[in-house]
């Protein structure tokens, strides 16, 4: 049995087993912390930072999905600083990525009141839709680089390792080894990446084609 740890979240006392993340501890007392890259069946990568919270005594905001609870910790999930951070993260995302097909992120934009046009005029990430196999397409213009597809393909689920990270900075994107077409990689087309993608970046070919047909009509 693990030792238990007691802390406060938004001034409520909570006792959870050692090693629990702040996000899980918060959820246990009904405080929902927003997440994007986090998925309960994957190792949290702490990339999107929308789950950010304030921990008393810490200089920077902390990603609640990975930071474990500590004895006597005081966590605040709805301070102005936290709210601003979340809002800016969403505004920055919206400035470069097409979020039309990301309903959960759209909801967060509504909730935080993020101004999606705040950073209008910045460089948009532009990628051609990759249609290189019989089963799914990859539209990286809609990719927020949450890392879920890479993890689901690696040791969190499939152990196939077809996906990785390519380039750096604004050009960085999910890629295959040397950007090879999917059929030339280790991909077994399980589509577990498609199932876990939070945006429209990965999509089954049947769905993609029927959408295109509808657009033409």
């Amino acid at each position, binding site marked *: 049995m693990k030792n238990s740890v007691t802390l406060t979240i938004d001034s409520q006392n909570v006792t959870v087993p050692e090693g629990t993340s702040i996000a899980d501890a918060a959820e246990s007392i009904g405080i929902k912390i927003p997440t994007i890259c986090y998925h*309960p069946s994957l190792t949290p990568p702490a990339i999107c930072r929308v789950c950010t919270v304030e921990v008393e005594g810490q200089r920077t905001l902390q990603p609640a999905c990975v930071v474990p609870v500590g004895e006597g910790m005081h966590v605040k999930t709805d301070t102005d600083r936290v709210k601003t951070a979340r809002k800016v993260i969403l505004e920055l995302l919206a400035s470069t990525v097409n979020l039309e097909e990301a309903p959960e992120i759209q909801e967060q934009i509504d909730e935080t009141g993020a101004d999606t046009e705040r950073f209008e005029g910045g460089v948009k990430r532009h990628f051609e839709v990759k249609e290189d196999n019989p*089963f799914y397409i990859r539209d990286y213009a809609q990719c927020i680089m949450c890392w879920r597809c890479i993890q689901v393909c690696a*040791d969190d689920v499939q152990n196939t390792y077809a996906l990785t990270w390519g380039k750096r900075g604004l050009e960085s994107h999910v890629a295959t080894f040397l950007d090879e077409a999917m059929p030339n990689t280790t991909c077994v087309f*399980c589509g577990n990446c498609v199932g876990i993608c939070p945006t429209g970046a990965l999509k089954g070919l049947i769905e993609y084609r029927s959408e295109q047909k509808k657009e033409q009509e």
Partner: protein
Amino acid sequence: MKADKVVKSTCPYCGVGCQVLLNVKEDRIFRVDAPFDEAPNFGRLCVKGRFGTDYVHHSGRLKTPLIRKTPQSPGNRTRADSLEDWREASWDEAMEMVVTRLLDLRWRYGADSITTNVCAKATNEDNYLMMKYFRSIIGTNNVDHCTRLCHAGSVAALQLAINSSAMSNSIAEMKDLECFIITGSNTADNHPVISTFLKQAITQNGAKLIVIDPRRTEMCEFAELHLQQNPETDTALFNAMAHVVVKEKLYDKEFVEERTEGFSDYIKSLEEKTPEWAERITGVPADGIRQAARMYANAKAAAIYWGMGISQSVHGTDNALTLINLALLCGQIGRPGTGLNPLRGQNNVQGCSDSGGMPNVYTAYQKLTEPAIRQKFEKAWHSSLPTEPGLTTTEMVDEILTGSVKGWYVMGENPLMSEPNLNHARQAVEQLEFYVAQDIFFNETNVYADVILPSAAFAEKEGTFTNSDRRVQRVRQAINPPGEARPDWMIVREIAKRTLNAISREADKHPDAPTRELDRTIQRNAEKMLANWDYSHPNEIWDEMRAVTDPFFGITYERLEKEGGVHWPCPSLEHPGSPYLFEDDFPSGRGKFFTVEYTNDSEMVDEEYPLFLSTGRLLYHWHGGTMTRASSLDQIWPECTVEMHPNDAAKYNFEMGDWVDVSSRRGIITARLLVTKRSPEGAIFIPFHFAEAAANTLTNNLIDPRAKIPDYKICAVKVVPAESVPTHREGSHIPLEDRGAIKDTVPG
């Protein structure tokens, strides 16, 4: 795209029983997801479940009942591939014809002149009704299905040794395994979602895997040890492992004493079966056998998973018995993470067997030869039931040829792709007097039928499937069937009612019929029987089934709705279900050790036919190909391939992609060569999905004497350059290695 509705159901492909979310818009499935928080797959799917269910929308779906334009006669039965050969009929006409022709045979030749294949793809409810129809109205136990061609060896052995016939442990336990053996199973291709849990047990929990298989399957890349035995030498290898366990005193003395019998005879039989003896037979180094035996016996918990490589053999029962012996010896059963786990093939092959789709048992393996059990079913069905077990599918083929079987009612299934020695099986089908098929597509078998009844696919009906770990799960309707197609249970219900009416009306015209006694019973009870057949929803069929089947009694549709799935045995409504079995005892009381001697009865290679052939499946296709070749999956692997080891390819001067003729003593096929180290030297592998190069043209119809399962994994063949190259199918002009399906290309 926003869905009109999202319907949760169960995947129609393999025995894992993945839960799927069918996203529907305008009566079409456009996306398949999986719920992340539900067993058995927890959000995972494979290529078939996620991208391969579009066959339901294929233009080739059967939409109306069809009747052959040219009447067929025994011996002159022909193939009718074109729609031109058929005329569309009303349900009324088609069903009347089926009933009239079946009763005609029944009255002339007796009930046993008719047989049925029930269907491991159809629901429990569909299968229960069909076997009930055959036993209680037609009056024969000639009910069987493709389990005969699949895990019959495993079931026969499990019944002999412990009186069980299913996986003992659950899929959910896999992530916590400590040590496990995979033998005769290409798990990553054939149970892809199970393989992801097994891989995780290894990469994240440090579990140790021993693969025992002549082929170097993908799981070998995750294994601590791969023992690559010669084909058909499994019993020698497992006996030698047991020899090591006994000699080194690694066995579980307490378990052996308290829970088994036959130990002393068994260990005597192991005396001479040293690893060195086994090395000479199997080609596996004696030290490898010792190491595997120690790993399995010494683990706190160790499980065995096996597939067709064990079962589909003329020694299928013996092979499985040696695995059971090993588990009993080491006490590796009856606890989490242990067990004897035959990985079932079809989505509902477990359920079809559980529903009584076999010639010797009713639901949940209740033996029909036991009077008390038979009387229970007679009472429930208001009929008198035949007392002798019926024919197995493999025996049926021969009985048609001897003339004792005349009529055939096939629900689903495609025996002329899946039976061994297809030319022989086809000759049998040509001899039939009457053949009715119930299917979603034309296939290689039903093109010989007199009548085809169009049925609904998995997404178009309600019911339950039971997966490989005995979990009963719901199948739900997401879309409408095409045209006039109907769910199987509805078709069988109507046929049964019409048959009852016809018997009541007309049986007196046949006073000398061999079925006279049954006819009288039916005439007496007609009203009750008709009322009993008045099902309005599969729920009612399930309720009837659980009322006569103690292990299912606690499982109701209401519970399935709430809990997602329940593992049988589940004898009461309060019972939580049984993810793992045999904690305290076996259904047989004590587990029995069986002495197994290594024998060599399969067809052996010789100068003329110098290579062994093994058959099996690919990740991207399903069995006879009826579904997958009508889906997106056909694009990635559109043609048959012959796997050959690079050393053999060099020896015969072949290269990747060469067209070759493969022939055995029974037939010949033409296909392209795939050079790969997956197959061992001296043995080739051909998947059996492709009608234009049907692997079962080559296989041997030799059968296991106890389980009646054919020897699919071994026969002797030769491979020569193709005499002529067949016309390309769409997509097959792309070089094999560029299609993206082959992940282990070895340069030729």
